[in-house]
C-alpha cells in the first residue's frame, strides 16, 4: 500500500503524539510512585 504525502505526514504526527502520550504516562506513574512512597523511596535494604 502506498500512502500519499499528506497521509504520511499525518501518520508521522500521530506517531509523535502517541510517543509523547506514552512518555507522559510513564513519567506520571513514576511521579505518583515517588509521591506515594515519599521518604520511603530512600529506604533500601543493604
Amino acid at each position: 500500500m502506498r500512502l500519499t504525502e499528506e497521509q504520511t505526514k499525518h501518520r508521522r504526527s500521530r506517531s509523535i503524539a502517541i510517543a509523547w502520550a506514552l512518555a507522559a504516562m510513564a513519567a506520571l506513574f513514576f511521579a505518583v510512585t515517588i509521591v506515594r512512597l515519599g521518604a520511603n523511596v530512600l529506604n533500601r535494604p543493604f
Partner: protein
Amino acid sequence: MSDTSLDIDQTGLETSSAYCAGDVSDFIALMKPRVMSLVVFTALVGLVVAPGTLHPVIACTALLCIAVGAGASGALNMWYDADIDAIMQRTAARPVPRGRVSPGEALTFGTILSIGSIFTMGLLVNWISAALLALTIGFYLFVYTMWLKRRTPQNIVIGGAAGALPPMIGWAAVTGTVSVESVVLFLLIFMWTPPHFWALALYRSRDYERAGIPMLPVTAGHDVTRRHILIYSLALGPIGLAPVFVGLGGILYAFSATVLGAVFIALAIRVYNRREGRAAEQAAKKLFSFSIAYLLLLFVVLLVEHVLSGLAVTGV
C-alpha cells in the same frame, strides 16, 4: 471502485483512501474539547471543595483521568452517532462525518482512552473515583447515546446524569467517598441540563427533526418545551442555593446563586412568553448562552470562596 477501497496507481502500487486521513487535531476534536473543559472545571471544583487534602501530583492525575475519560466518552459518542452527526448542521463538521477519522478508529481510540483513564484513576488515585468515572463513561455511552437519545424526549433529562457526575468524581478523588455535599453538586448540574439543552433544541429543532432525534420540541412541540424549561428553571433556583445549606457555599455564593437563579428564571419566563418569530429564537439563544455562564459562575464562586477560606486558615 468505491472511495473506501484500495486503488492501483500508475506505479502499480496500491493506494488507499480508506487509510486514516486524520491529523492529531482530528483526534483532539474527537474528544470534544469544549465539553471536556467544562467537565474538568466542575471536577476541579468538586476536588477543591472536598474536605481533606490531596497531593498536587495526585490531584492533577485525577483531573487528567477525568479529562481523558470525558474525551473518551466524546469519541465513543461520535463513533456511535456518526450517521446522525452527518445529517445535523451543528455536527456535520465533526471528524467522523467528514471522513477524517473512520468509525472504527473512533471506537478504538475511545475504548483505549476509557480503559486507560479508569485504570489509571484506580491505580494512582482511588478505586471509588475510578468506579464513578467508569459509571460516567458507561452511562453516557450505553444509557444516553445508545439507549435514550434516539428513543425518548426524556433523553437529556436522564442522560444529564453523566454530565453531572464529574464534581462527584473530584470529591471522591479526595475523600474516597460519595457524600451529601457531592450529591448536591450532582443535583445542581442534573437540574441545569434540561433547560440548557431544551433552549438549544428550541432553535435547532429542524436539525434534530431531520436527524430523527426525539428532542422535546420535535415530539411535543415548542410550547410544551417552553413550559418544561420554565418548570425546570423554577426548580433549579432553589437547588442552586442547596450548596449553602450543606455548608459548601458561603455568603458570596448565596448572593450569586440568588441573583443568577433569578436571571435564569427571568430568561425562562421570556422564552415562555415569546413564542413567535425571531424574538422567540433570540430568547431561546439568550437563555442557552446564559445557562452556560450560570453554571460556570456558580462553580467559580464556590472555588473562589474555598480558596479564600483556605488562605485565611493558613494565614496568607
